[in-house]
């Protein structure tokens, strides 16, 4: 089965990650494709609200505590054909601090879900849990808004992802002493990523090549949400270009989703946005974005970097 795991993440709260995830799911489901939406925002789950549903059981917490034997059984039907939802847990205090073995089990079960499209709605921030979910997916979509705070946090999120990818590879190849060197050089001395790789290539070219390849395998996408004019749309293109040049990653700009007042109205009415506003500019943008990703040959050929999480 040609399976795609989408992760919708980002560095800042309120950028519209859940909105994009919910409407992407609704769009794909409307095309007769089986979709499972998973609310992986462990600290503040509310994907069910965006779909016009109430919180309830079974949820992700039930799966993690063993009440629901598999993730498949925690995925409940929604009022929308072809779309199922794994609701976020109401037991937030327990679930937000997910132990390592539970995270591994969840990641394994996500891969085993018998659905061609799984969409993970991730929480804000750069905790290891969030980063690992983001890195396990293909494609990983970063959602930003045209504001300095969101741009700053987007770069921070990308940098955290990069450091995590490099650490996982360093652990895998048992070159853990390099990790400390990387932290010293990049975090403490604010040396650029280029500077770190340059010095690494000079001292140990083989490890430098391995890590550089690992970094090039990390290919996130960017969506600029809540854009109001042409400048905001171009800002997304600029951010992707800057990330390519300064963070050495192959970032693809998927496009912009224009700001719409109707979104707020839909949310207040506890109705999902997409089915009622199919011809609106924001819905069209989501459609275009998802079609590009779903049919893109580039993404079909792309394989996510094989990341093996170290055992706890």
């Amino acid at each position: 089965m040609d399976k795609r795991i989408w992760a919708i993440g980002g560095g800042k709260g309120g950028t519209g990650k859940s909105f994009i995830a919910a409407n992407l799911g609704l769009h794909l489901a409307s095309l007769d494709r089986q979709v499972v939406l998973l609310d992986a925002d462990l600290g503040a789950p509310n994907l069910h609200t965006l779909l016009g549903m109430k919180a309830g059981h079974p949820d992700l917490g039930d799966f993690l505590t063993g009440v629901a034997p598999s993730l498949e059984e925690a995925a409940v039907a929604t009022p929308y054909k072809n779309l199922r939802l794994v609701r976020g847990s109401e037991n937030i205090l327990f679930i937000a601090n997910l132990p390592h073995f539970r995270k591994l089990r969840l990641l394994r079960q996500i891969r085993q879900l018998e659905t061609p499209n799984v969409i993970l709605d991730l929480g804000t921030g750069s905790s290891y849990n969030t980063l690992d979910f983001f890195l396990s997916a293909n494609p990983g979509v970063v959602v930003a808004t045209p504001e300095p705070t969101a741009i700053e946090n987007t770069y921070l999120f990308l940098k955290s992802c990069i450091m995590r990818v490099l650490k996982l590879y360093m652990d895998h190849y048992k070159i853990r002493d390099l990790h400390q060197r990387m932290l010293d050089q990049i975090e403490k001395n604010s040396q650029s990523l280029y500077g770190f790789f340059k010095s690494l290539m000079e001292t140990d070219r083989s490890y430098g090549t391995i890590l550089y390849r690992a970094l090039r395998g990390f290919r996130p996408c960017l969506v600029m949400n809540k854009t109001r004019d042409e400048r905001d749309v171009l800002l997304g293109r600029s951010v992707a270009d800057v990330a390519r040049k300064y963070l050495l990653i192959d970032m693809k700009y998927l496009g912009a989703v224009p700001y719409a007042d109707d979104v707020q109205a839909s949310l207040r009415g506890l109705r999902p946005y997409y089915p009622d506003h199919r011809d609106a500019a924001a819905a069209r943008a989501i459609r275009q974005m998802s079609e590009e990703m779903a049919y893109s040959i580039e993404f079909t050929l792309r394989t996510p970097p094989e990341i093996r999480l170290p055992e706890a």
Partner: protein
Amino acid sequence: MLKRIEDWNYYELLSVERTASQDEIWEGYQAALATYKDGSLALYGLVPEAERELVLERVQEAFRTLRDPARRREYDLALLRHAPYFPPKAAFRKSVGKVEIDDAPPPKPGFWARIRRLFVKNP
């Protein structure tokens, strides 16, 4: 591969291919100007001011060179001497048969179809 900002060539600075037309160069220049202009949001939290100014100067120099055909030819020759150019490959492979490709050329007629076309007037 791994390049420092001083090592980016003019095409990389404007994010265009080496075969780019004048229109594409203009478009790339406008995008680069928007990225590296004073107070640009795209650099917020990542690129320091001194570096921004340096890149902006190089972007302007890149545009001045590439928009002038004579200077561009001269620059291309100099660039080719130490960095040969390989045009990007098509984004599809034969093994990916199930994916629709809008830009792909229509499939060539097979051998017998071509032969038949030679002999049959209205195939």
